[in-house]
């Protein structure tokens, strides 16, 4: 028999980066600037805690919402770092990565036909997530002239006043843009005025190089309409351990937990032990990684300027978003620089409206490799000028 695929699955196109995978696979000595994950290993103390938990045979399910002590530690951490106050018993859920949390939110809050406005360019999983939930995506482009920040005009132009849900991701993947408090305030007002539910993916919050991260949930009247996502993948270099969480009002988190308890039961137990230790004792490791990313960021930005490619001054996450020279589309540039020079980069188009003509460069790669990769990009640009 052949599988009759659901309309929802068919509605999601294949990933825009799969073709590049194949090219990268054929070629040796590829330096990849295409990865959205830290090149650091999880801080040793956190790994040790995971190992110890295994040795002690702590391998059963935990509470659906996550271990109590972990939820308490998360509550303390977000209060301390981001001024977010959530009750660990009812307002926090620990998930298998922020990815699961995002999916739970779409499934819990989006009905078929609901409109989900997504500030773009942005992380590639939101749009499929909305479609799987039966919702409709409304892209809200952000522009380089606005430093890739979301503006009320942008929301109005896209018709987001009619939307049900608004998805934000700052610091942003792929642009590296951040939204300082003064830029978030009018967005918060817009959300209140048009009664939008806000899903705010703040997984790169710690990776803010210029100023402090502000969560939209801290604005007046926003806590009750916002779900905040965060996790351990990025700042704590724990991608493979699959641990994230969501913060929100008790009813909303309760609804997400309803789905979670039937699909995931609980987040990985070993990872929860690692995460608890990460929050307890790995602050210095995080700071060390952030410092290194910052140095790489400055290096990469300045090299692009030397190469003569316009590059947006990324201030968060570990990406920067240069413009390709006019004679190329982003896809062409990415494909040719991979074939000719063995440097893997992601064309901006895959991140949605507003990403065209740009490349996502991840600097979650050692400086030596970054240096070599940028030399190769320079040679490529010179050869093709």
């Amino acid at each position: 028999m052949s599988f009759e695929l659901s309309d929802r699955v068919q509605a999601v196109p294949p990933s825009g980066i799969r073709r590049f995978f194949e090219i990268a696979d054929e070629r040796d000595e590829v330096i990849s600037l295409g990865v959205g994950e830290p090149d650091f290993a999880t801080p040793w103390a956190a790994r040790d805690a995971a190992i110890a938990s295994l040795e002690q045979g702590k391998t059963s399910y935990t509470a659906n919402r996550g271990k109590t002590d972990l939820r308490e530690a998360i509550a303390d951490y977000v209060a301390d770092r981001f001024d977010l106050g959530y009750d660990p018993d009812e307002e926090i859920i620990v998930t298998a990565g922020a990815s699961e949390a995002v999916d739970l939110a779409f499934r819990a809050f989006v009905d078929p036909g609901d409109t989900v406005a997504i500030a773009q360019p942005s992380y590639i999983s939101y749009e499929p997530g909305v479609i799987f939930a039966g919702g409709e995506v409304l892209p809200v482009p952000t522009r380089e002239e606005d430093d890739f920040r979301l503006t009320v005009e942008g929301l109005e132009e896209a018709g987001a006043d009619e939307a049900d849900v608004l998805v934000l991701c700052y610091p942003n993947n792929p642009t590296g843009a951040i939204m300082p408090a003064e830029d978030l305030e009018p967005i918060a007002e817009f959300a209140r005025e048009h009664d939008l539910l806000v899903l705010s993916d703040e997984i790169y919050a710690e990776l803010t190089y210029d100023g402090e991260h502000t969560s939209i949930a801290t604005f007046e009247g926003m806590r009750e309409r916002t779900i905040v996502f965060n996790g351990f993948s990025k700042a704590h270099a724990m991608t493979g351990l699959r641990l994230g969480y969501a913060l929100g009002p008790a009813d909303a988190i309760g609804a997400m937990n309803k789905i979670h308890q039937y699909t995931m039961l609980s987040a990985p137990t070993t990872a929860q032990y690692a995460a608890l230790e990460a929050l307890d004792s790995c602050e210095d490791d995080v700071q060390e990684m952030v410092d290194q990313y910052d140095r790489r960021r400055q290096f990469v930005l300045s090299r692009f300027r030397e190469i003569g490619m316009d590059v947006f001054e990324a201030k968060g996450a570990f990406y920067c978003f240069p413009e390709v020279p006019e004679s190329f589309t982003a896809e062409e540039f990415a494909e040719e620089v991979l074939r000719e020079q063995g440097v893997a980069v992601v064309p901006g188009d895959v991140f949605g409206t507003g990403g065209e003509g740009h490349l996502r460069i991840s600097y979650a790669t050692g400086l030596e490799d970054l240096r070599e990769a940028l030399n190769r990009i320079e040679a490529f640009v010179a050869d093709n000028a």
Partner: protein
Amino acid sequence: MSEREVLESLRENARYSAADIARMTDLEEAEVEATIEELEAAGVVRGYQAVVDWDKLADERVRAEVELNVTLDRETGYDDIAERLARFPEVKALRLISGDYDFDMEVEGDSIREVSQFISEKVAPVPEITQTVTHYVMTSYKENGIELGDGEDDDRLSFSP
């Protein structure tokens, strides 16, 4: 604290150019160059060396960690003994340490014979030295903060979200 930033970059890779370091920090290239010169002149930066994995080379290099115990008398202090030992080119590192023995000495030579001869003929006879214990290095896993061996390849996906 430009000195610190410059030092950290140089320790990571002494071959970074002043331009590279300027790009990573917020400093001007000229400022980086001047800082390096000052650090060299002040004797903070004492030299630049390659970190070598000798196991990768066909011709052998023998290294030993030697524990030294000494007795001091009124005329001779640790510094005097150290000065004498440090002069031998075979001695690559020499440190006065706390604990069960006094000096920790790294010795390098072309063969085990050469190294043991050096220790028995040149080091042991030093009058203040009461005992030497030689540990030959079998395999080195990390040198100067750099991991040796084949390491793991970066097996992350070449593209990820």
